């Protein structure tokens, strides 16, 4: 029997961890994006340039390398503000995704701020589906945790496949794994595309009515 009875339950529980790590990376990224966004939209040139340099370096740092860097160099236990934390591999994967999530949200946040300042609240609200899209990208990226021993979905699939002797059996396990990941991810992407389209349509139709062009200052 290629797929053991507990395979689906194990992969699904592993996938939950993928979603959990992505949520941690998303929340931490949103928090870190606040100073980056403010630094991007500020009128002070020096701060703006400094923020741009930080964002450029963060964007250039490959997630996989950042993960290994943190995994090998962070102490097992750290204390932040008097709170002791254990640096589990799960937390390290979430932290390694921070450069991506924080720069993504800072860029989208800056754009949303510009739109909101220009009076287009609906255009600014596109930040919501963009956040959802980033979340799904983060879920896909959490699979890198398999390289440092996080027991997430990909790791369970690989572990199961490695125990099988033939190529066809392994490919069958991989195909099942792809399907299990594809269903929630593609559903999410489709829903987000629809939400984005809906918001764009509302924004466009609102742009044709006299009230919508008024910014809060004109009201």
């Amino acid at each position, binding site marked *: 029997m290629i797929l053991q009875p507990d395979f689906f339950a194990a992969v699904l529980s592993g996938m939950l961890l993928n979603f959990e790590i992505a949520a941690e990376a998303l929340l931490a990224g949103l928090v870190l994006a606040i100073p980056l966004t403010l630094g991007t939209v500020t009128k002070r040139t020096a701060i703006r340039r400094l923020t741009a340099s930080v964002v450029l370096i963060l964007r250039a740092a490959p997630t996989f*390398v950042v993960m*290994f860097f943190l995994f*090998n160099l962070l102490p097992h236990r750290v204390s932040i503000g008097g709170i002791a934390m254990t640096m589990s591999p799960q937390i390290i994967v979430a932290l390694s995704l921070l450069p991506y999530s924080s720069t993504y949200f800072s860029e989208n946040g800056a754009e949303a701020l510009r739109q909101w300042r220009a009076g287009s609240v609906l255009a600014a609200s596109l930040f919501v589906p963009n956040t959802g899209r980033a979340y799904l990208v983060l879920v896909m990226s959490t699979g*890198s945790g*398999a390289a440092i021993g996080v027991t997430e979905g990909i*790791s369970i699939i690989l572990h199961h496949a490695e*125990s099988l002797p033939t190529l066809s059996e392994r490919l069958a396990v991989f195909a099942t794994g792809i399907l299990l990941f594809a269903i929630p991810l593609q559903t999410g992407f489709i829903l987000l595309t629809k939400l984005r389209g809906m918001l764009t349509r509302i924004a466009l139709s609102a742009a044709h009515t006299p009230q919508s062009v008024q910014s809060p200052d004109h009201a």
Partner: protein
Amino acid sequence: MTVWVVLVSMMLGVATSMAAPPFDPAARPEVALETLLARSRGSEDCAATTDRLRHILCSGVLKVGVRGDYPLFGMAAGTIRSGYEVDIAERIARQLGVTLSLVTVSPANRIALLAEDRIDLVMATMGHTTLRDAHARFIRPHYYASSTELVGPRAVQAADLSALAGRTVCVTVGNASNAELSRHGARLLLFDNPEQLIDRLNAGVCMLAAQDDSFFAKSFTDPRFSALYDRKFHFAPLPWGMAVANQGGEDLATALSLISQMMHRDGVFVDLARDHHIDAGFLMEQRAVWNRPTCDRADGFSNPDCVLRPHATDLAPTLFASRVSDFEHWLGTQAGIHPVLTMFKIAPAWDLIRWGLFNSIILIAATLASTLLFAVVFGLGLSTPFKPLLWSARAIMVLVQSTPIVLSLVIAATIANTVFSFSSTVALAAAAITLGLTNGSYAGQAISEAIVTLRSDYERLHSTVTAPKMFMEAMRRSLVQIVSFLINATKGTPAASFIGAPELLNALTDTTSFSSDRTTTYWLLLIFYTLAVLLVIQLCTILRRTLEREIARPGGDSP
């Protein structure tokens, strides 16, 4: 009266010193040891001595560095110590007539503590290699020998090193056999201590784990462990040595060698190993060796026919090793930074890094080319009016875009390793194709969307254009997205290490066989890849601006 006592004592001291006969190579080891100890006891002033043996005899304490987490060999539970090495340390202290003080050491600090004079002797599951010979004085004969053992679930097949290509093997950082595993295409998952390997095997994180057979010996005494796992194969035999500091350690080393000779000859090592349920095969062989008349003499420990050679790690220095050392020293004194640049000082480590850098650059270039190629293929497929081709392209795109990149890489490697046998080239090619396929699918999607808008533009303007011209225009329109996915592909290249591609991340992981330092190693890795991505960003930006200027000039092709 006091003056007389002092004078008599001094005369007795001189007499004792003079009475000690010179070291006779043909003497029995116990006679030579007695002579050596007598000479040391009678030599210079205790406070001024730089000789380690004299210092131990003066202080009456022997400080030995042992492991606290290595079952059967050195375990610490509170103040209680146990293990084969602990028992040997007790025997040695007794022979020297001093008190034993045990200090817990780890593979990362055991030689450093010796150099810092915080311990007199280290006996901590340490393999004797030619590299370590430069940092400490190893005692021969060796008190044990191990080999690296590969352990995994009984259902998993792995007959030899060639079976490890593309498979994950959990190892400890600093293990001398890591490079050997990596050379055969194994994905190494590094852990700090061997206990974690057992935990990760049981948790299902590690399918295979490699460690000294001495470490797994304890686990295999557990029936539950034996029922689940078995030994796949052994490789890289390695003699274990106790070691003392290079400076001032000559007499201490001689004394310990003589004691070790006698412990082998008299079967003490064999008995102690049996007491701790350790495989005594090597020790039985050694017992026979040290009972030979040619070996059982004072100079036996220096006779090449009696002792084992250290594990050769082929550690010729690089041509610029001294300049690297100078640089380390300069950084330390000028900036207070103390990087460990061993990888630049040892020729084999430097070779690994050079090849890692070269392969990384090749991988990045191949991935960029492959991304562009797949972008064109997907762009054409997704914009074709021929429905079967269109739907096939869409299906592949959805499949590729729904698969996490790590899984895609493993699938590609599994297929490639089945069709071809594992090699660096196969792993690099599989990684470049997979990364190109994934990122090219996104870029191709952008091109196809640009084609749709272009068609509508041309229809609106009642203009006609040839298909190749429209495709080129679509490529120009989607340049921003193409560039962003080229950058993304570059950022993905380190993930190729997961399938055994010998790029820089894997090369630097291999260098942990030569040095247990990881700080400098992973800083170098982060800096290299960040700079590589920044360079690709810069090149893509220049390319994009050039093409945009081309379009903007009078007579441009845009509708």
